[in-house]
């Protein structure tokens, strides 16, 4: 028996009224795989992550996580839309880092990292703090643990957000344009943390990014999205080196020209 994919989008569609954002998406991501999603704005890239994080509902299809349906549940041998309890059970495997950080402004870096482990996982405060301290150390912010988000730079805030997501021990991490809101000189420190995370932890990673250099160096696979569909996908060497699709070529040309 072959191993279940970590994530599987099975013919998933998303529409806002008459606008179809994603059109019958099929995508499988293996355990531990690092997948980058690139493409022009409005191509549905971010929607893929938001659906997987259950921040958006889906109109058609099923999303599977480790062989279990996320958006649905089985009842009498049939798939019916999932209730909140089921969603929360499966969602526990997924963590997300946002473009705009979304740290809790009334909590310190440390408090941001222990909040959900204590309230959601029921961890003891001391255990949660020990774990958070390790993670803040991993992102290089041990000495900032008692700072509030407003006292941190954008890069530092984003590193805290990564530590906060890791504190929930997800198997899948989603990164939604996590460097897009940062000043150029702060992008490197965040990418370095993601690199480290990829090396040291057995995480499945799915990221939407405009950092082509990083996507090329870091990913096992790159998916180029266009108009709600995967237009082309493959190992970064192929997709960047010898794109087959005309749209991919145009996009890469435009992006590399500008960059």
């Amino acid at each position, binding site marked *: 028996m072959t191993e279940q994919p970590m994530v599987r989008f099975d013919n998933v569609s998303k529409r806002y009224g008459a606008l179809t954002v994603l059109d019958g998406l099929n995508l499988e991501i293996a355990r531990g795989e690092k997948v980058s999603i690139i493409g022009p704005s409005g191509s549905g890239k971010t929607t893929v992550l938001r659906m997987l994080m259950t921040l958006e509902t889906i109109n058609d299809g099923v999303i599977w996580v480790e062989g279990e349906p996320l958006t649905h549940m089985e009842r009498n041998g049939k798939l019916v839309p999932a209730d909140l309890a089921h969603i929360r059970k499966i969602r526990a495997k997924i963590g997300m880092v*946002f473009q705009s950080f*979304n*740290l809790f402004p009334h909590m310190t870096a440390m408090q941001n990292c222990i909040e959900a482990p204590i309230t959601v996982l029921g961890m003891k405060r001391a255990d949660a703090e020990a774990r958070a301290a390790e993670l803040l150390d991993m992102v290089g912010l041990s000495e900032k643990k008692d700072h509030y988000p407003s*006292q941190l730079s954008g890069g530092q805030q984003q590193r805290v957000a990564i530590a906060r997501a890791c504190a929930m021990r997800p198997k899948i991490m989603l990164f939604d344009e996590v460097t897009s809101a940062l000043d150029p000189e702060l992008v490197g420190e965040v990418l370095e943390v993601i690199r480290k995370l990829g090396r040291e932890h057995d995480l499945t990673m799915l990221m939407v990014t405009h950092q082509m250099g990083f996507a090329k160096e870091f990913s096992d696979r790159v998916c180029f999205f266009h108009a709600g569909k995967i237009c082309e996908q493959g190992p970064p060497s192929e997709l960047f080196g010898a794109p087959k699709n005309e749209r991919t070529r145009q996009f890469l040309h435009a992006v590399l020209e500008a960059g």
Partner: protein
Amino acid sequence: MGIRTLVAMLAVALVVIGALATQESYKVFMPGLLQGAVLTIEIAILGSLLAIVMGVLAALARMYGPAPLRWLATVYVEIFRGTSALVQLFWLFFVLPQFGVTLDAFLVAVLALGLNVGAYGSEVVRGAIQSVARGQWEASTALNMSRPQMLRRIILPQAFVAMIPPWGNLFIELLKSTALVSLITLSDLAFKAQQMNQNTFKTIPIFTLVLLMYLAMSLVVTIGMRLLERRASLGLARGKAA
């Protein structure tokens, strides 16, 4: 206006009350007026507490409750916001006994004013909750928090800061509305003033003192709310000035 200006105004009001109270023509009214003021303060405090409880409950019920609760909360808000506080007082005090429910006048005062202001307060709470950035909900969802956990730990603490100034307005409204309770047999500050005026016709000293007393009480509310606002926003703004 800064807190210092408010404190200065309060000090002036208190000093003037004190100075007038030493005058022979004013002195005689002080014990009665102070007695009335105590009742006014009691009703205002208990009414405000009830208003907070009702405001938060009604807002949460309307936003997140199951359909029957949502319906109930909407009916409550519209009835108490859409009719006058005076009529509500009269209804509870004079009409309810006709149906066999007789409530103590003090209880009616607290209930009517608290429920009335709570109806307005629910809109304040709702607006403040909706003013919290969407990203905060999304981050809490990504951390797999339940709806009650999100509200209690993430959303309400942030919404709280935005609620303070409008609640300050409502508390002052409530304080002034307590004058209505003189019409259901309670001897509050306004009632005492009218009573003394009818007996003595010393209109100037009586209503000057009463005016200053209401002013002093509302300034205490305003100053208290300002201090609370400053404290509450500390956590959110910490380091922004640094």
